[in-house]
């Protein structure tokens, strides 16, 4: 009974491709997030959604588009993948934007 689950866990693809990462939470939370952990291990927020509404949109290239079909799901679609997109992407959720956030196990994206 995983609380925040992401698929796939590993994603290896070529530059220029389009890919999606899915995230689901069963905690009953109404706020979901995407974070990126780069090669220097910094965890940085990308987006957050509250009840399907975009709340936070950091300075992320518009090749990244989050989609929230309902409050239990937040997917991340990435167009025209670039080498610099290689990172670990973490999904998280919380109750009404109040910490703590609960994280999934991450999706390691590798661009060849």
């Amino acid at each position, binding site marked *: 009974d995983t609380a925040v689950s992401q698929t796939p866990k590993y994603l290896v693809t070529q530059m220029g491709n389009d890919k999606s990462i899915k995230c689901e939470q069963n905690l009953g939370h109404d706020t979901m997030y995407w974070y990126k952990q780069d090669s220097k291990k910094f*965890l940085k927020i990308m987006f957050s959604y509250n009840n399907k509404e975009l709340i936070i949109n950091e300075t992320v290239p518009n090749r990244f588009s989050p989609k929230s079909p309902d409050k239990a799901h937040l997917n991340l679609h990435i167009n025209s993948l670039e080498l610099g997109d290689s990172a670990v992407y*973490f999904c998280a959720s919380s109750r009404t*934007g109040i910490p703590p956030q609960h994280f999934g196990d991450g999706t390691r994206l590798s661009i060849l």
Partner: protein
Amino acid sequence: DQQVKQNSPSLSVQEGRISILNCDYTNSMFDYFLWYKKYPAEGPTFLISISSIKDKNEDGRFTVFLNKSAKHLSLHIVPSQPGDSAVYFCAATEIYNQGGKLIFGQGTELSVKP
């Protein structure tokens, strides 16, 4: 512009001793602080938090201390156990102002040796 800093990338401690992990921040608007623990190939797991109206919060072997004037917090683990070996991240936020946005430090890798 790193608002949350963990200046020690690694720390090695003997089992049974105290582990002290440190974190500094620059933004005086932060009013809530958290520590997360992360094992390889897993997501960060929430450990303990503290509000800026307190200077100490304790949960079992874990205690977080906050010094607002120094903009410094620390996590004490007593006694340290080999299972505590992991990367520890501190994070900060303005709890009602930032939509839940957490600003993370770069982590400290703790190794507890038997």
